[in-house]
Each structure stands twice: as structure tokens, then as C-alpha cells.
């Protein structure tokens, strides 16, 4: 088991935790945590291939920076949705938000 | 009379005794070889001690220097602001002119009772002062006072400085949320808004220094200013950085989060005794860190005519900047939160961007001057 596969297994573990969080959690903010964990797992994978794989270091960092930028935009919109849902419905429990009208 | 829940403080004392012992044992284990080398040097040639990193970490640009300057800054601030407001300031404690007043304050704070509010989130409530002190103190590792007197001459020193200070808003929110008090909640959010909208001008104002020096390491930036200080190339950014610095340190013109008239004392309302003391201590250490950073980026660190050795130049400049920062408290009234935040976005950022664009366009001429 060479160096590269240790980091791939690490990003797989974080991916598994993220997916578990998305499936099992009912609080909308917890699901957002899980999405951030999954995005970071992808970033870790890029970094691992930059160090041990065939990806150039500068190329990997440029891609990873774009990933961080887009994850930031996604988090901003997601949190705004959660705040608005809390304001309209008073609760952010993903199970109970199934009616369109109040 | 509601009954009191179990005494949180005594259980905390037990845990923190164990934690302190483990931490100090770990530190001792880590620096053991360096400690031996230091002691040997003590007998062989004591002058060589001055540039061992352990000495630098613990004494000169490290802990002892910072805490002494923090105490002195507290005394100087109270006397200076008092003189500006035509009163005397601390006079009776200690010898001449109340010189021992800060030490008296320290002992007073240590012996004051720490009140932990009932509904507070006790773990975070107790730990956030320690976090604030650490986030305030950590950046001084990267700041150079002379080519040799820097603890860690890191290749990305400037970025590390900003990365460490990115934790401060988080600590402010934790402190505000854990004390479960309306004043601290509103004060914490105001502090968050102020710091969020003034961290951007700080980032953009530090960019010209990076561009002109061509690298992130603070010693390279300082040594690149041998001929011309960067404040001459980027005066607008220096002004914006100074304003951003005052906002980050929550000095008087930007003192919205702990506006005494409305918010009692902002997000540190529920803290008493040494917990509040740690916040203040962290604030003064951050003041020193920021002024060291400002001197390194815009006023050319230790560069100066050969009258004084380089170390005294940087100490002189840092003390001047600290004095200016302290005296501003006496001159300006407090700005309202909306003026403050809109000024931050409406005026400071366009000035910063203008300055960066000018430097970027004048690249061929600047290359001829600096390189």
C-alpha cells in the first residue's frame, strides 16, 4: 500500500461521513455540514494526486482554489435558504418541510 | 431562591490542573535539547544566547517582551487619554505617576471572583478567553524586528498572519453565544459585522506590499524596502490599513461592539475577573502584533539610516505606531455601526482597489526603481 492510497482512503472516509450526514441528519444545517465535508474530501483527493500522482502542484492548487470558491458561494446561498426557511416556517427540520403553502 | 446547580468551577479546576501539567510536560519534552544548549551557552559565551530561537520565542520577540509591552501600553493609554481629556489619570498606585497601576489591575483581576452565569454554555464560556488570548498572541511569531530577531522567518509569513487572525471572529461569536445574554448577543454580532467588513480592506491593503516585494515572507518584504519604504508607493493602502487595523482592534472610533452607553460592554458583558482580563490582555497583544505588522509592511521594518542599529529602528517605529493607535482613543467620538460598515465598504475598498490598479499599471517603472 503506497503513499497515494493512504490519502485516497482518507478522502473516501470523509466522503462516507459526508454521505452518512446527508442521509441520516434531519436538521438542515447538519446537512450543510455534511455537504462541506464531502467537498473537502474532493479537495483532499486533488491534493493527494498532486503530491503523489501525475498532477502538477500548481495545477492542483488552482483547481482546489476554484473548488473552495464555489463551495463558499454554495454555502452562502444554502445558509440564506435556511435562514429564510426558519423565518417562514419557524423550524428547519427537513422532514417537516414538505408543504409548499404555510 | 432557586437552588444553585453544581459548582462548575471546581470541576474545571481539576481538569485544567491536569491539562496544564500535561501541556507543560509536553513543552518541556519538546524543547529539552534546546534548553540544554541554552544552558551550556550560558557558561561558554553568554552573548550567543541572543540568537537561539528558544530565547527569541520566550524572551525577545516572544512572550516576555509582549506581556511587558502590553502592560506598558495599558499604562500609557490611560495616562495619554487622561492628558488629552485634561485630567491626570492613574496617579497614586506605585511610584512615579501611577507606574504600577497595570500590575495592580492584574492582581485585582486575578483576585476577583469569576461569575459563571447559570444559563451560559459553561465549557465555551470558560475557554473562549483562552482562545482569544492565543489568537491574539500567535501572530507575533511571524513578525520580524530585524533580520535575526524573528521567531519563524516563514516563506508565507504574511498569509499565515491573516490565517491566524481569521479565527478571531469565530472566538468572538463563541464568547457572545455562550454568555447567553442579549447585550453580548447583539454586541457579538456587531463585532462580527465590523470585523467582517474591515478584514477585506486589510487583505487588499496588504496586497501592494506583497506585489512590490514579490514574496509573502515578511523579512523579504522588510528587506525589499531598503531604498524606498512601501508607504511611498502605496500611501492610500497604508491609510486604509491603519483604519482597518483600528477597526480590527475595536479601538474607540470603531468601538461599536462594546459601546458602553448602549451595550454595557458588548460581547464581554458576562465576563468578570481574570476571564475579562484575558480578553484585555489578548487585545493589547493583538495591538502590538498589528503595529509590528504595519511597520514591517509599510514603514520598512528595520530599514533606516545607519545612525541607529536596525533593531532600534524597528522598535522605534513600532512604539510610534502603538502610541498613535493608543492616542486616537482620545481624539475621536464613536462612529455609529451603519456609518462604520458603509464607510468600510463604500470608501475604503475602492481606495484600495485604485491603489492596487495603479501599482499594477506602473509595473515597468517600479521595476526600474526597486529592482
Amino acid at each position, binding site marked *: 500500500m503506497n503513499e497515494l492510497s493512504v490519502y485516497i482512503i482518507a478522502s473516501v472516509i470523509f466522503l462516507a461521513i459526508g454521505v452518512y450526514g446527508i442521509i441520516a441528519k434531519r436538521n438542515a444545517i447538519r446537512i450543510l455540514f455534511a455537504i462541506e465535508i464531502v467537498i473537502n474530501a474532493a479537495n483532499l483527493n486533488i491534493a493527494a494526486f498532486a503530491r503523489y500522482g501525475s498532477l502538477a502542484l500548481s495545477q492542483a492548487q488552482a483547481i482546489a*482554489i476554484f473548488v*473552495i*470558491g464555489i463551495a463558499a458561494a454554495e454555502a452562502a446561498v444554502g445558509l*440564506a435558504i435556511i435562514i429564510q426557511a426558519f423565518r417562514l416556517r419557524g423550524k428547519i427540520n427537513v422532514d417537516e418541510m414538505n408543504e409548499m403553502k404555510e | 431562591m*432557586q*437552588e444553585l446547580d453544581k459548582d462548575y*468551577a*471546581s470541576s*474545571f*479546576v481539576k481538569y485544567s490542573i491536569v*491539562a*496544564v501539567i500535561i*501541556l*507543560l510536560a*509536553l*513543552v518541556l519534552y*519538546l524543547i529539552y*535539547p*534546546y534548553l540544554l544548549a541554552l544552558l551550556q551557552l550560558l557558561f561558554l559565551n553568554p552573548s550567543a544566547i541572543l540568537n537561539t530561537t528558544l530565547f527569541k*520565542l520566550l524572551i525577545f520577540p*516572544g512572550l516576555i517582551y509582549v506581556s511587558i509591552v502590553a502592560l506598558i501600553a495599558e499604562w500609557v493609554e490611560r495616562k495619554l487619554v487622561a492628558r488629552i481629556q485634561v485630567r491626570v489619570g492613574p496617579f497614586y498606585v506605585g511610584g512615579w505617576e501611577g507606574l504600577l497601576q497595570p500590575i495592580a489591575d492584574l492582581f485585582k*483581576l*486575578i483576585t*476577583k*471572583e*469569576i461569575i459563571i452565569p*447559570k444559563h451560559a454554555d459553561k465549557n465555551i464560556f*470558560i475557554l473562549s478567553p*483562552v482562545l482569544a488570548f*492565543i489568537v491574539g498572541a*500567535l501572530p507575533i511569531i511571524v513578525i520580524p524586528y530585524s533580520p535575526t530577531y524573528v*521567531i519563524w522567518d516563514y516563506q508565507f509569513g504574511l498569509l499565515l498572519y491573516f490565517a491566524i487572525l481569521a479565527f478571531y471572529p469565530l472566538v468572538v461569536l463563541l464568547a457572545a453565544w455562550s454568555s447567553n445574554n*442579549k447585550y453580548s*448577543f447583539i454586541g457579538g*454580532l456587531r463585532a462580527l*459585522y465590523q470585523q*467582517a467588513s474591515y478584514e*477585506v480592506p486589510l*487583505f*487588499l491593503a496588504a*496586497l501592494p506590499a*506583497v*506585489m*512590490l516585494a*514579490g514574496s*509573502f515572507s515578511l523579512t523579504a518584504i522588510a528587506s525589499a524596502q531598503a531604498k524606498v519604504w512601501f508607504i511611498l508607493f502605496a500611501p492610500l493602502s497604508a491609510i486604509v490599513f491603519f483604519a482597518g487595523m483600528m477597526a480590527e482592534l475595536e479601538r474607540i472610533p470603531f468601538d461599536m461592539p462594546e459601546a458602553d452607553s448602549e451595550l454595557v460592554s458588548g460581547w464581554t*458583558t*458576562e465576563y468578570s475577573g*481574570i476571564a475579562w482580563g484575558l480578553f484585555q490582555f489578548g487585545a493589547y497583544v493583538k495591538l502590538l502584533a498589528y503595529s509590528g505588522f504595519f511597520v514591517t509592511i509599510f514603514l520598512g521594518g528595520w530599514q533606516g539610516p545607519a545612525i541607529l542599529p536596525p533593531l532600534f529602528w524597528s522598535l522605534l517605529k513600532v512604539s510610534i505606531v502603538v502610541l498613535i493607535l493608543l492616542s486616537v482613543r482620545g481624539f475621536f467620538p464613536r462612529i455609529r*455601526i451603519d456609518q462604520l460598515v*458603509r464607510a468600510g*465598504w*463604500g470608501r475604503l475598498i475602492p481606495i484600495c*482597489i485604485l491603489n*492596487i490598479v495603479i501599482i*499594477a*499599471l506602473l*509595473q*515597468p517603472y517600479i*521595476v526600474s526603481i526597486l529592482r
Partner: protein
Amino acid sequence: MYLGDGGPFWFAVFLLIGIAGGLLFYLVAFILAPRARSAIKEETFESGQIPPGGKRVRLVMQYFAFLLLFLIFDVVSMFLYAWGASYYSFAPSQSIYAIVLLILLLPPIYITLKVAKSVGV
């Protein structure tokens, strides 16, 4: 020693000393300071009145837009610092993208602030 005397080693040592110092402050305070606890003393501080229910949401969302703009400029500064550090290898004609990017970011500030003010966020 694996960590050697590189920078991160001293960073970790300084961090540990900082944590130990903070806790030491607390230890000395808990030993010296009196512990006279009383229910009234531990009520949340409300300058005397009874703390009513929180109407926080309105007041809290005053400047939410500025927080988002801070997020944007943080992300954009990631690219700007990369371009800034290599200033001497970019002729002005080549750094057009960065300059236009900087200028392009000004109008959104005013638009978002105007919308935020009208929308009351």
C-alpha cells in the same frame, strides 16, 4: 527529532505555551479568587429588568449582506494574492484579467448594498 527546529516546531511550542499560560491564569485566579456563589449573582445581566423573550431575528439580520460580501472578497483575494506575489513576472498587459477582475467587483458591492437596504436585510 522528526519535527526538527523548523518553523512549525516553534509554532506548536508557542501554541502549547499559550494554552498552558491561559489555563495557568485561570488556575491562579480560581485559587486566589473567592467563590461566593448566589442565584441572583448568576442571573443573566439585564441592568436590573427581567430578561423578556428574545425578538432577536429582526435586529440580528441588519448587515447580513456585508458578511456575504466579505466571503466573496475572501475568495477573490485567494486569486489576487497568487497574482500579486508574481507581480514582477507579469507585464501590465498580461495582468489585464486581474485588474479587470478588481474593477469588476466594485459595482456588485453597491448593487448588493442597495438591494440589502431596500430589502431590509
